[in-house]
């Protein structure tokens, strides 16, 4: 990997991957402990709901500390920003959406189109980010491929689009939307081929799932006009 050794004062980080892994797990354990803080522990003889989760968190924290120590003591894999950039970006969008949602709520808007405002904010910001990345895909493809954003952001974007449309418009839109958006995740994708393929695969899925397997799944909904 790229950064095998990072100087940090007198102490040297020798296995950055293990260090980051340990710190992330510590964070996970702390987050879970915060979320479980209202659960009564009980006694060993009659355990409360909190006992087992707390015991597991304790063990996770223990192993996490071991990983942190390992990161300082033993040579190991390094880390590269590109490996985590997508997750960090999605988390950042999440934070922005929560803040925006909270301020919209304070302004008296409890729901937008039937969704909580933070959900709408998340989708809006995510869409903007995807559009920006799509522009980069044309302008600076090598940068985008190296950034580590391309795969995860477009795949997750496709999944979100599917989730938003499958119940409101139906498979006719959700399928091609998912295939086309997620298709942008690969640098080898060709647009024309992908468009044809997206329509074809959706048609196959509709025949197979809706008519052969008879899954209760809306194919096309136009409110008040049609429900297939």
């Amino acid at each position, binding site marked *: 990997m790229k950064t095998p050794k990072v100087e940090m004062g007198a102490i040297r980080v020798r296995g950055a*991957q293990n260090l980051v*892994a340990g710190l*992330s*797990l510590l964070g*996970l354990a702390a987050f*879970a402990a915060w*979320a*479980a803080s209202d*659960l009564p522990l009980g006694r*060993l*003889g009659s*355990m*409360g*709901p909190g006992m*087992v*989760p707390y015991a*597991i968190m304790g*063990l*996770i924290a223990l*192993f*996490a500390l*071991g990983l942190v120590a*390992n990161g300082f003591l033993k040579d190991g*894999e390094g880390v590269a920003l590109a490996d*985590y950039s*997508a*997750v960090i970006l*999605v988390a950042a969008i999440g934070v922005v959406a929560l803040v925006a949602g909270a301020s919209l709520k304070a302004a008296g808007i409890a729901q937008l189109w039937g969704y909580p405002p933070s959900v709408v904010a998340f989708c809006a910001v995510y869409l903007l980010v995807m559009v920006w990345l799509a522009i980069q895909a044309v302008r600076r493809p090598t940068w985008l491929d190296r950034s580590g954003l391309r*795969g*995860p952001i477009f*795949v*997750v974007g*496709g*999944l*979100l689009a*599917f*989730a938003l449309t*499958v*119940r409101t418009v139906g*498979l006719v839109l*959700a*399928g091609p939307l*998912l*295939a086309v958006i*997620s*298709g942008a995740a*690969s640098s*080898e994708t*060709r647009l024309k*081929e*992908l468009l044809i*393929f997206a329509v074809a*695969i*959706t048609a196959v*899925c509709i025949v197979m*799932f809706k008519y052969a*397997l008879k*899954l*209760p*799944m809306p194919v096309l909904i136009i409110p008040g006009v049609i429900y297939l």
Partner: protein
Amino acid sequence: MDMLANLGLGFSTILNIVPVELPGIGAVPLPMNIILCFIGCLVGTLIGVLPGVGPIATITMLLPITFQLGNPTGALVMLAGIYYGAQYGGSTTAILVNIPGEATSVVTTLDGHEMAKQGRAGVALGISAIGSFFAGCVATVVIAALAAPLTGVALLFGPAEYFALMVMGLIFAVVLARGSVAKAVTMILVGLLLSTIGTDLETGQERLTFGFAPLSDGVDFAVLAMGVFGFAEVLRNLEVSENRDVVNKPIGRLLPSLDDLKASVAPVLRGTALGASLGILPGNGAVLGPFASYTLEKKIAKDPRRFGRGAIEGVAGPESANNAGAQTSFIPLLTLGIPPNAVMALMVGAMTIQGIIPGPQVMTRNPDLFWGMIASMWIGNLMLLIINLPLIGLWVRLLKVPYRLMFPAILVFSCIGIYSVNNSPADVVFTAVFALFGYSLIKLGFEPAPMLLGFVLGKLMEENLRRALIISRGDMVTFLEKPISATLLAIAAVMLCLALLPSVRKSRDEVFTE
């Protein structure tokens, strides 16, 4: 004789003919279970043969479809078919493209792909199918013979013993996997933690749900599996640029010649024995089978230099061991309710959704399901032989589908599956979250498979732990006082210590890198 009667029950369940309403024709009597097994094998191979889609991903993708089947027997028979199909699909990619579907077919790439390069791909595929079929037949008998007595043992177990057994199962799974032991244990713990999300069984209090209603039933198994194995795998594959080494030599004849068969008989027998016995281990013993078989064949060969250059023994032995182990690894699941590896954990999830808790009680409560599943293993193996060899041309063509078209198809297919489990778009979003989670785990050097094991066993472990401690009034010593649980825990402790010893660790790494 009991065994024969039981197998008879199994086969009569499988061959059971039910009238099926066909549109336009009316009720037609059809052997539904056979048809489901056939479809399972076919679809399993179809997906499993796609490069970059291993058996775990294949099964997670097809899991939601089996949920739609009303009867548990049919669903599990189909699932077993999918499992064998996916396994065989993995071997096919190993031979033709040099991409092993999972750890157990790594060894097949060594000589199998070499044979393919020499224009003997057909023979390699043929011997692997024949060897697998033979191994499958033997393993089915082994399971049928061992299931009843082992189930009897399991019925003696109380909560303390069960807890100890599950601890041992998890430790074995860690020790026999590759990669860092400490990181694998951590993954199990994360899985256990995920399993505690939802309503507490005893007090009814919500745990770790953040007051979020969809979480009160706990994390959905299919969602977790699809996110962490299906989609995270797609993300990982997107990063490696396509470099597919598809053999462009002709496949050649499929049936091995008499000389090939003569050379393969002994390796097949040895591989079957090795794989079947290693597969029974409570941990992921099945992984070791092919490695052990390959090493053995190489050691006793007259001319070991032939290995790695297209020796048919190097395909016949490991492939038989692979299939025998894949099958006998059902034993810990069916008798004790302990899944030895991630694939079996998926089976547990599928069974639970059908309302069946795996464990010793299945055999007494649903004997037709239990024996039907065992009979379906044999049928499944037969199907593979029938499906695979004639359809080999189709598989080869599938191998050439480029990944840029494959992954959107995989995503569309999986999303429809996940959505249809609960008709919930929110599940699709959760799957996306778990995909990012699983992807980060891979980037941090964690192997996600142990997490699934921990997640599947978590609820059961907690239940038994709490029960055992209620019986002993909070005395932890109870686990050491009971002879069975003390023995199991001692074995687990010894295994863990051994795995952490530097010298053993080194040789363990060698086993997996060879």
